[in-house]
């Protein structure tokens, strides 16, 4: 359940997403709406709200597959913001104002190949989401997290099936970096939580559009939404989409409760919960999104398969989200291990 403030934010973002187009979109999203600063402390130019508000914005931008590196940038604001509740210098001080203003786009680099030696990073990472536009990389090396300027890295954009979200290969050859306080594992789980929220939003959109089509498309003299086999498939999808949203927000709550602003007594239990719910929610929501996108195409018939129709973009996004930051099979094993099921 949204708070009244969250509901207003949701409405504003949804309204923006309905109208957005063209190159000025990022400026409005970051300026007028201030979305990248939602989790940035006020002392760095953000609104100091938090991950719950970022999640609201990510659900709505995910719904339309907004072609902008919003998720990564806003998350970087939250991750670096955990260091910077009060002006403390370090990585946070340098990057947070740019994130909050929208001048600095960010991306996350996980995986095992980057190492830190004498305060410098070396290694190559592929499939860096939102990496092509990033000015800042937040990079895992071992169990720690570092902030690196894109200017100190070699960034090669990759062509993507899903043209609404960029990927890049990022190389570090002794890049200077600043330590970020948030543990790398936590940051990746937070990324999974936001991918879950995004997937839940996109899946809901697939269902909405499909239901809308079924109400208006007439075959055999009546709307095809009157055909029970299609109705039941939409009903099953509604169950899944409902469950995806509930699960994504349960993970968001664990993320919020385990963040530095929360009561200390609750933080460690919530951190353990996040470690389970991050992978769990990402797997569940991406799987639901995939199913919703596949049904969106099938239930639209031929038109759903054309380039002009949006359905194929959702299918490609869904598969990409399933494969990155843990495939369904990998996350299943991770959940099993973290929940002590083995």
């Amino acid at each position, binding site marked *: *359940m949204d708070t009244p403030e969250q509901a207003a934010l949701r409405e504003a973002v949804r309204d923006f997403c309905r109208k957005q187009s063209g190159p000025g979109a990022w400026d409005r999203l970051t300026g007028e709406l201030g979305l990248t600063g939602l989790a940035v402390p006020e002392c760095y130019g953000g609104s100091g709200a938090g991950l719950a508000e970022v999640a609201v914005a990510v659900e709505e931008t995910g719904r339309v597959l907004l072609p902008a590196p919003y998720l990564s940038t806003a998350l970087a604001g939250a991750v670096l913001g955990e260091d910077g509740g009060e002006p403390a210098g370090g990585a946070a001080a340098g990057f947070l104002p740019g994130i909050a203003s929208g001048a600095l786009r960010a991306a996350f680099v996980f995986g095992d190949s980057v190492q830190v030696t004498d305060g410098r990073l070396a290694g190559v990472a592929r499939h860096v989401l939102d990496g092509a536009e990033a000015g800042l990389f937040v990079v895992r090396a071992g169990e720690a997290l570092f902030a690196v300027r894109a200017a100190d890295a070699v960034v090669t954009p990759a062509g993507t099936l899903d043209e609404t979200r960029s990927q890049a290969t990022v190389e570090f050859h002794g890049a200077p970096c600043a330590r970020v306080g948030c543990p790398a594992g936590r940051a990746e789980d937070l990324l999974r939580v936001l991918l879950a929220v995004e997937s839940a939003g996109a899946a*809901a959109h697939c*269902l909405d559009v499909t*239901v809308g089509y*079924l*109400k208006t498309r007439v075959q055999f003299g*009546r*709307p095809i*939404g*009157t*055909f*029970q086999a299609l*109705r*039941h498939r*939409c*009903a*099953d999808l*509604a*169950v899944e*989409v*409902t*469950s995806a*949203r*509930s*699960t994504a*927000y*349960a993970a968001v709550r664990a993320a919020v409760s385990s963040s530095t602003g929360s009561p200390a007594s609750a933080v460690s239990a919530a951190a353990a919960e996040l470690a389970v*719910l991050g992978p*769990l929610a990402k*797997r*569940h929501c991406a799987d639901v999104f995939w199913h919703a996108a596949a049904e969106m195409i099938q239930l639209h018939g031929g038109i759903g398969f054309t380039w002009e129709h949006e359905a194929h973009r959702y299918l490609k996004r869904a598969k990409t989200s399933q494969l990155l930051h843990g495939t369904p*099979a990998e996350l*299943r*094993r991770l*959940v*099993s291990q973290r*929940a002590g*099921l*083995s």
Partner: protein
Amino acid sequence: MTDEEFRAEVRGWLAARLASAEFACLAGKGGTGRAHEFVAERMAWERRLGADGWIGLGWPEDDGGRGLPWRRQVIFYEEYARADAPGRVGHIGEQLVAPTLLTFGTPEQKARFLPGIAAGTELWCQGYSEPGAGSDLAGLRTRAALRDGEWHVDGQKIWTSLAHVADWCFLLARTSADAERHRGLSCLLVPVRQPGVEIRPIRQITGTAEFNEVFFDDARTDAGNVAGEPGDGWRVALGMLGVERGVSNLGQLIGFQREFESVLAAARGNGSIADPDIAGRIADAWTGLQVLRFTTEEVLGTAAPDPVAGGAAANVVKLMWTSWHQRLGELAVDVIGPDAMLAGPEYDLSDTQRLFLFSRAETIFGGSNEIQRNIVAERGLGLPRG
């Protein structure tokens, strides 16, 4: 009292009572596929619950309840499940009849019926389904006519659980001969122990009889024993369908958790957890239970309609839990392996076997999954009817 103090009180009461000589035999009895067990003892347990104020927690205090908020009721159900307390025999009265009377009943009806429900001294059964009207409740053919100040009831109901122990039946009958389909139905309150009512148990897939057929042959009830207006039974009955098990859905999750844990323990015990297939399905079952819990809390725990499930939140939850529970039953059997297909003497079944078999009924009774999907499509998604 805080929620946690309330929880401690519930827990303490349950622990003490279930440790008593009278009720110690009841732990874990009367659950899934075990409705036939220890009925007399569970009737005594029901009266104990009533005497100590654990029935009607959410009813208004003026009506003999305790006026507790939703969250406290959930706590009660959670602790009830956690304590492995016995399957209720009074739930139809408490969760279906009482809410109906609280919404539609006259002051006289409330005064007559609520105290017996609250005390656990009068038990109820529910007469909706008929052999020719399962999914299609509007096709009911049981008839009732008002003559000489009494309703005279003729017809047949089926899948009536607890009819053999109930005092009263909450009955949906056709009271207007010329009206068709869902018009002209009425909700009658009919005494079960009378010459015009005959009850025959139905033996089920488990070998035991959890349900009954009930035959009405000029059965009688007073003219005033109709809930809501005569002819308005469709609205009354369907209005309460979602309510029926709403609050207890959250409580039952505790029982599901315990069932899951016993499956996990079995897989560890016989080493089958080393099989990647079993390990994966165990992870899926656990994941599914978390997803079910989050969804149940979200869509039943908030006042506003869910953005996706809309007005069909209870239906979404029923589709989820019945499917999950059925899959858990299959997993439980697959974990145990061929031994799970052996029956004890006189077809005595284990908890796993009852879960496995009885969960096939859960996707049928209380509105089949097909009916639930119809409702989700129509009320949740607004898809047009054919």
